[in-house]
């Protein structure tokens, strides 16, 4: 006979009775404070699965519960007298260092692969599988918000606008006709020298950008970069990537809801910045490829980058990883690499 010390609660009141569970060699059990009418087979009782070293409870048919901290004795009796439930495997996984270490490596590899390749690839496939009109749907209202919050009407001369628009129309004609390409001019105010692309195909150029550049081909590089965002469906892909990432975080850390939201927010910002930088690289190479195929000197791309860097001098340093754009040096390197390639050809 095995005897396991513990406490008994009858389930009717909160009274505690210190007692022992007596397990006989034929697999029947009885609580030591009860008489022989209380004898039952261990295999008919509800035994809670083991979680770390928390107390085990053994439920009797009348609603009473025996609780004990002696997990090992309970496990031994269970192994001998009844079929283990599948949940005992969980404790096995949770208690062997080798299994936990394997799980750790698997989780790290999975997270990295999902972040680096899985989510972007999934979003790309999904974005191109969706009808082109989806791009219009997610653009709705964006321009109004920008107009209300930041922009004021453009003060650029009409002639200049017409001239720039000619480059834009020429460029748009060579692209996928899934989009309704339009070029708009706005005064950027606080935003400064910049250009934006809405997923629907609308490109906004700020007056400050027009004033910043010294050569029309630099503007062509800007416009090509923005059209790159459009044809690669970056807006839609961003929406999908961010929501898949959010769902994954909820799924995985769903049982860590007590953790402060700040801890979740920081990696989210980091990941979204990395994804954004990926899109910018794609748009840069689109722009470079366009310049190349139209026999425009790639040096204009470089001078554009240098001018922009001078204009927004504060966006690098430690905070570079949180920036939505890759560092200028890296963007210029892409241009240098292309030039190298062109030379060797």
């Amino acid at each position, binding site marked *: 006979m095995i005897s396991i010390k513990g*406490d008994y*609660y*009858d*389930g*009717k*009141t*909160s*009274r*505690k*009775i*210190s*007692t022992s569970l007596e397990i006989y060699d034929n697999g029947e059990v009885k609580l030591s*404070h009860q008489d022989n009418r209380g004898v039952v087979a261990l295999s008919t009782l509800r035994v*809670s699965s083991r*979680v*770390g*070293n*928390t*107390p085990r*409870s053994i439920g009797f048919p009348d*609603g*009473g519960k025996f*609780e004990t901290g002696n997990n090992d004795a309970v496990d031994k009796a269970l192994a001998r007298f009844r079929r283990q439930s599948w949940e005992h495997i*969980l404790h096995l*996984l*949770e*208690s062997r260092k080798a*299994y*936990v270490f394997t*799980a*750790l490596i*698997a*989780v790290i590899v*999975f997270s990295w692969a999902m972040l680096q390749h899985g989510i972007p690839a999934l979003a790309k496939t999904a974005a191109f599988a969706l009808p082109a009109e*989806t791009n219009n*749907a*997610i653009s709705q*209202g964006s321009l109004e918000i920008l107009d209300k919050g930041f922009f004021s009407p453009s003060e650029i001369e009409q002639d200049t606008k017409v001239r720039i628009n000619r480059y834009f129309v020429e460029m748009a004609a060579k692209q996928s006709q899934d989009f309704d390409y339009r070029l708009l001019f706005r005064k950027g105010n606080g935003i400064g020298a910049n250009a934006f692309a809405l997923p629907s195909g609308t490109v906004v150029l700020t007056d400050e950008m027009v004033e910043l550049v010294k050569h029309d081909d630099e503007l062509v590089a800007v416009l090509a970069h923005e059209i790159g965002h459009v044809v690669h469906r970056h807006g839609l892909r961003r*929406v999908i990537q961010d*929501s898949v990432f959010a*769902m994954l975080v*909820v*799924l*995985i*850390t*769903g*049982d*860590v*809801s*007590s*953790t*402060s939201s*700040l*801890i979740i927010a*920081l*990696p989210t910002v980091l990941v979204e910045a990395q994804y954004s930088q990926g899109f910018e690289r794609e748009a840069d190479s689109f722009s470079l490829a366009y310049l190349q195929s139209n026999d425009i000197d790639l040096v204009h791309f470089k001078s554009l980058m240098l001018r922009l860097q001078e204009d927004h001098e*504060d966006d690098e*340093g*430690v*905070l570079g990883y949180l920036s939505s754009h890759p560092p200028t040096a890296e963007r210029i390197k892409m241009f240098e690499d292309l030039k190298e390639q062109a030379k060797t050809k």
Partner: protein
Amino acid sequence: MMSEQIQGDATHPMQFEFTGSGGEYFKIWLVNIFLTILTLGIYSAWAKVRKNRYFYGNTRLGDASFDYLANPVAILKGRLIAFFAFVVYFAVSEFVPPLSLLLGLIFIGVTPWLVVKSLAFRARNTAFRNIRFDFKGDYGAAARVYILLPILLPFTLGLIYPVMVHGQKDLVISNSAYGTTGFRFEAGAGNFYRIFGMLFLIGAAAIALLAMLFPVSKEAGMITALPLYLFFFAFMTCHISNLVYNKSFLEQHSLQSDLKVYDVFMLYLTNTIAIVLTLGLFIPWANVRLARYRAERLQFIPAGDIDGFVARELENVSGAGEEMGEMFDVNVGL
């Protein structure tokens, strides 16, 4: 028959205790994540139950521990419904913005129901000495503090915010019971006004400080913002937790919580730094450290014998409310 003697009296408060360890919980936590990934999320319901069983089971009061009894299948059903609702809500708000307003209204209307179901599910699946807790709040009471008062907030310039928080805590505690014995909440809205008054001053001072720092150096501003945010959060958690516990009564029995702002702030700060530096691997230790500290500072002050609480017959509550509430971040914790 051996019956335990009275375990404490007003002169002998009973100390809460947390007996879990970070290392042990790390293994459970990691296997939870691993199996959740492997099963494409299905296991998350079991993961939640194992996590809660670990934390409840290690929370002890006078030689007995708490017990989490939820059925993972009930939670899984709730999660599937919540997940589906989340996808619909997200798709609609991204692609058909006008319709999302309607969905939002429906969601607001459903919130009190979610809150009530979630509280009932949690209470009825928590047991101590084989007696379950209970919650019997209704839709109307929850609607007052989760719809009506939040709607009035902007019209009162936020001045009724403490009334709302008081109402939400009151909803939880006054409608909770241990077995057939109901809890009583004796805090008034005035207690909450005091706390939020102090929080307002702290917040204003913090914003003023940051407004001076940021123009000087962006980096210095960001580095200062983190501890300020955590201090604000620690101050709020400590004062509200202490108030809620100290003003809750179970018949003549009472609770005594004595969380210190500085201790909690240091815990938050070191936890956050360690979590960031370990890319999240410190999370289990962080959770255990907080649970241990909270238990250390909490006492149950019995007014006499605690053997006489009587169980009540319970019907089962589905997990849908709790899980959906969690998914949409309805905050109903103590």
